[in-house]
């Protein structure tokens, strides 16, 4: 046990930076993904057919493709398109697109679950559609979308581990580097696993706390 | 005429659900071949009583004796124990129950429903069980539907399969819990006819029902329960024509068909 703890101490900075990068990547992805997903969800429910179609294709393509394939595609393709992306940027791009599709689907479901009477009531007091959306529909949809949204966040933290395959210095890659030096394979993989576990459980609890607060009204 | 020992004896049955006492000392006896109907308003405890006899519910005090065997509990060293799952299952196979909501096994055909108990509890071979199942389905008029699934049968047909399922186990006593209450009106009569037929065959039946005319027709005795107790217990002629208690009189007034 002692040599293991020793090695953790020695490697504390790379491991900490790796952990931070994991959180940063997941956070960026959930941020972009939520913006994209809300637009997507709203268009899928209320948009004209000509707008709905590309969003539908986007969602179906993203959902049918494994995250790793998205990551590899985002890693290799930009360079031939003349765009230069770092591995981290490519990773965030892939994860954001992935999150956007998932959040789009869950927003679609949440919006469609609102009883039609709600929109009717809003319109009959004179609210325009954007107002109806902003003040009546979205608040209700966001409330019911919260648990699956947290779930998407958990999936992103898990997905960030795949970025190690394209050389992004997140937690898993840094762990593998330490293992490469020390050969303490099982100890450090368990250690990394524990950190992922803690992050996800924390996120889950955070979500439940927010949910309680929101229901409290 | 020799007095035979009763097939079913319920003595001083008390049952609570949490803090609420639902059965407050019930005494009831049935002889072999007797048909007894229990009537009363909801909350009177009649369904709970049936479920205690069937050992689907536990009871706090009192005895149920079926054909000489005290069922559900044993007393060792002066302390009362609920019997093991295996013992309870064996005892349950001695009574048959038909439920208000049929509760047929949706993943098995009509024949499959009847055969399951025969194969797993009575340990019959497949061919033997199948033959017996077909016989009982024929008895309730559904031989042609032996290989149909419950979803392909009407409510009345499903309930008749449920009756066949209970009877095929050759139980000493059959419990019927409001077996027509969940049926569309036009399907009620076929089920009542089936019950009358098995009564005429000599089965021992304990029936909880709202169908007053049927109770009068088919029963040897009618029992009126109110608030967890047996209030009156007499042949149908006396119960329906000459109610002795005010409670029964009022009940009959409110349910006159």
């Amino acid at each position: 046990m002692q040599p293991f703890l020793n090695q953790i101490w020695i490697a504390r900075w790379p491991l900490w930076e790796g952990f931070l990068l994991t959180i940063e990547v997941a956070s960026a992805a959930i941020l972009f993904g939520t913006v994209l997903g809300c637009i997507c969800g709203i268009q899928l429910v209320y948009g004209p057919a000509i707008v709905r179609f590309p969003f539908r294709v986007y969602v179906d393509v993203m959902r049918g493709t494994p995250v790793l394939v998205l990551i590899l595609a985002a890693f290799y393709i930009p360079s031939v398109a003349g765009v230069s992306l770092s591995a981290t940027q490519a990773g965030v791009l892939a994860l954001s697109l992935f999150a956007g599709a998932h959040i789009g689907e869950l927003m679609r479901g949440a919006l469609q679950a609102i009883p039609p009477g709600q929109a009717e009531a809003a319109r009959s007091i004179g609210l325009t559609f954007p107002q109806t959306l902003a003040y009546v529909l979205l608040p209700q949809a966001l409330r019911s979308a919260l648990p699956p949204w947290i779930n998407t966040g958990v999936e992103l933290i898990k997905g960030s581990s795949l970025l190690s395959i394209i050389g992004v210095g997140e937690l898993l890659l840094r762990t593998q580097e330490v293992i490469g030096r020390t050969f303490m394979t099982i100890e450090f993989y368990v250690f990394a696993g524990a950190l992922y576990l803690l992050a996800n459980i924390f996120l889950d609890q955070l979500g439940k706390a927010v949910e309680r607060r929101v229901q409290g009204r | 005429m020799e007095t035979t020992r009763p097939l079913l004896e319920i003595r001083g049955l008390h049952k609570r659900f949490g803090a609420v006492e639902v059965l407050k000392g019930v005494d009831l006896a049935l002889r072999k071949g007797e048909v007894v109907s229990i009537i009363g308003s909801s909350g009177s405890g009649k369904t709970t009583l049936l479920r205690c006899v069937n050992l689907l519910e536990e009871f706090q005090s009192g005895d149920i004796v079926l054909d000489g065997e005290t069922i559900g509990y044993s007393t060792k060293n002066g302390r009362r124990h609920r019997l093991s799952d295996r013992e309870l299952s064996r005892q349950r196979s001695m009574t048959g129950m038909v439920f208000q909501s049929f509760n047929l096994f949706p993943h098995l055909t009509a024949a499959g429903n009847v055969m399951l108990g025969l194969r797993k509890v009575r340990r019959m071979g497949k061919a033997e069980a199948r033959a017996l199942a077909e016989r009982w389905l024929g008895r309730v008029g559904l031989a042609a539907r032996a290989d149909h699934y419950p979803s392909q049968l009407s409510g009345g047909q499903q309930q008749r399969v449920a009756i066949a399922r209970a009877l095929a186990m050759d139980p000493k006593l059959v419990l019927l819990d409001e077996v027509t209450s969940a049926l569309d009106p036009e399907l009620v009569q076929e089920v009542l006819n089936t019950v009358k037929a098995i009564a005429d065959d000599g089965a021992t039946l304990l029936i909880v029902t709202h169908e007053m005319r049927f109770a009068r027709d088919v029963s040897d005795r009618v029992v009126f329960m109110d608030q967890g107790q047996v209030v009156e217990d007499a042949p149908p002629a006396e119960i329906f024509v000459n109610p002795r208690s005010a409670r029964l009189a009022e009940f009959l007034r409110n349910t006159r068909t």
Partner: protein
Amino acid sequence: MGYSLQFGAVWASFGNLLSGLALGLGLAVAAVACGTVIGLVAAFASVSSSRIARVLVGGYVMLIRNLPLLVLVLLVYFALPQLGIRFDKYESFIGALALYAGAYLTEVFRAGLVAVPKGVVEASRAIGLTRVQTNVWVVAPIMMRNALPSMGNTFIGMFKDSSIAAAIAVPELTFQARKINVDTFRVVETWIVASGLYIATCFAIAALLRRLERLFPKF
């Protein structure tokens, strides 16, 4: 820019992509098969009266669902040998994916168990079937049938997750695609074809599932 789409290089190795696809499906089938057994045992344990069983199952599910699959795969493949347990690439991956599928299926089956109508269970007990017989011959069949759609979705998910096997050099579809990418530099074409294959397969499986659901509707 000057990048012109040339699918020729990709078509030349299409056979490899297809065999990779078949391998991915095979991995998913194996994982879901094992995962179903795990899930059934765990689901029944999670509704049993034994507190230890419930806690263990809860712990298992929480652990696996919050762990990245890649970490689990690496643990099984690289770390277990340190304890003397040596699995080859395929066994390691299937084992890890089975554990993963098992956790998801436990939740699916548990919900299915709870949804079996109480009356049907009572009818089974009323005939005299013991608790075990009731579970085996009545509860489990009904629950499995109701759980078919969710099981199907889990299978699709596991098929997509089979792509992670590429990380330990199992030659499934993603691994083959990356090889073609690196050999030919036809990046756009390769990934279009690869993701196209995944998407088409997922759609096909989903269509098949819908058909099955119509044949075997829920109880």
